[in-house]
């Protein structure tokens, strides 16, 4: 079952099309990474899906509730970490969370239990009575994440959860998201941090007003750059180009120093025959590994392609 389904979801502000015809399905229990440059319409999408603003066109079903028909049920079923933590600085951590627990209709006893649970989980229990105004950025972010999860939402939107955090605090937040993933929660993660998306997400959507590409990190890499194998050999790799090219399934070969980069449709199945052919040709193989492209390369390629396409159409 899908936690989020959108069909032709569109939102305009005057002549500006912030979100254009977004059709998307995110299965339950998925950590979905929503990647895009600043101003791409990511926050507008999150606001629509959390029933904060209405779409201009199209529709969406979030946690089983239809947007526009059952908005209160959607708000009850989702948790949201906004771009800035948005905490009440003059209130304590406990007061902040208790207020939101009550706003999410948790009964008094359960509200206290949940507040305590998340304060402990995020290592803030000892600071529960301190005013939030005195908290570090990392502590504030953790508290805001706790606030988003207090009512155990079916879908959690996390907008740039590690933005502006020092590496240690960012690691704590990422580990916590991994724990949430292990619990099978559905998380809609908006981030600019591509290694983070690569590390955390099961499914990724690259977005720039429109959905440019959707897939697992591996699918995105393969879809854009193709699959392949890198073979590191002793000596100059260029000597073995012809031996590799002679194989019918090899789609392309390049050599650089001691490394052969070979494009293959199905590396897992074709690697044994490739290695055998190279060894028979006399190559001394040091290592065989899959060709890796970072998600950053994928993202930059996609966004750049869109930019060029837009420039051509104008």
């Amino acid at each position, binding site marked *: 079952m899908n936690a989020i389904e959108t069909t032709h979801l569109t939102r305009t502000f005057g002549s500006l099309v912030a979100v254009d015809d977004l059709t998307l399905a995110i299965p339950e229990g998925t950590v979905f990474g929503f990647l895009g440059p600043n101003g791409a319409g990511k926050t507008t999408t999150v606001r629509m899906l*959390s029933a904060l*603003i209405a779409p201009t066109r199209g529709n969406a079903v979030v946690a089983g509730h239809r947007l526009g028909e059952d908005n209160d049920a959607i*708000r009850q079923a989702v948790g949201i970490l906004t771009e800035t933590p*948005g905490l009440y600085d*003059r209130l304590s951590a406990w007061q902040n969370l208790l*207020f939101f627990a*009550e*706003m999410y209709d948790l009964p008094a006893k359960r509200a206290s239990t949940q507040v305590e649970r998340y304060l402990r989980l995020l290592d803030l229990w000892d600071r529960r009575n301190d005013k939030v105004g005195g908290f570090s950025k990392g502590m504030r972010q953790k508290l805001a994440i706790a606030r988003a999860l207090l009512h155990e939402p079916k879908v959690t939107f996390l907008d740039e959860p590690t933005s502006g955090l020092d590496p240690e605090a960012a690691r704590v937040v990422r580990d916590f998201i991994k724990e949430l993933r292990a619990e099978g929660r559905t998380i809609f993660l908006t981030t600019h941090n591509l290694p983070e998306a690569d590390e955390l997400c099961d499914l990724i959507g690259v977005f720039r007003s429109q959905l440019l590409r959707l897939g697992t990190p591996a699918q995105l890499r393969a879809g854009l750059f193709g699959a392949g194998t890198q073979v590191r050999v002793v000596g100059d790799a260029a000597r073995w180009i012809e031996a590799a090219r002679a194989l019918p399934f090899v789609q392309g070969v390049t050599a650089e120093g001691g490394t052969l980069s070979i494009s293959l449709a199905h590396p897992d199945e074709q690697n044994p025959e490739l290695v055998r052919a190279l060894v028979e040709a006399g190559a001394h193989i040091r290592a065989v590994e899959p060709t890796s492209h970072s998600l950053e390369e994928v993202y930059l390629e996609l966004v750049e392609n869109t930019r060029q396409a837009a420039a051509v159409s104008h």
Partner: protein
Amino acid sequence: MHKVVVILRKEFSEIVQQRILLFSILLPPLLFVVIPLFFLQLGGNGSRASTLKVPSLQGLTVNEYRQGLVGTEFSNIYILLSMIVPSIIAAYSIIGEKTNRTLEPLLATPVRRWQLLAGKILAALLPAVLVTWISGGLFIVELAILTDANVVSHVATPGWLILFLAGTPLLGLIAVAVMTAISSRVNDTRTAQQLSVWAVVPIIGIVLGELSGQFELTALVAVITSLILVPLAALLTWGAAQLFQRETILTRWK
């Protein structure tokens, strides 16, 4: 209704943590209770009293008239107070949420618009009405103790009492509604408060009209005034509610 109470509790918790805000709420009523003490003790020759013809003070001796004039001037300030105090609280409450960016997480909860607005309005209105009534009550006690026997009944007339008890909550509501509208356009509490001062001007006009003898605040005038305030407050609150929609707050508020 439970969520209105939750919001109210949160708002009060925040108010008591803000010394400047508390000071701004409590200082004006305190001053308006203390300052008349000096004026009533000063005495005077009654020359000013003889030049002004405040209708409600007719029939008093010259000394009583002088005391009554001080009393009437200050009694009207309590009507104004009901607009000043809620404006101060509402400015901190709404603009505070904006500048701290706490509105979006709050709007993301399943709170109804009327619950949020009611919580915000009551958080500004209840303390304002309370301090207005308490300080006004203290002022009347003060008059009863410090002035000649006839004076209190000429100051705390039925007209004034009706406006003081029924009109002040309505004026407070109008002030909060106006402040909500202003808060949607500005990001600074001081600017909002400066702009909201204009809402008090019509009331100052009425006060000056009475003191200059243009009309008398009879019970009938007070009832009519209060009845006019009811639809005006309702209309302005409706306007504020229109500005307090999730979509409007997130996409149009500056």
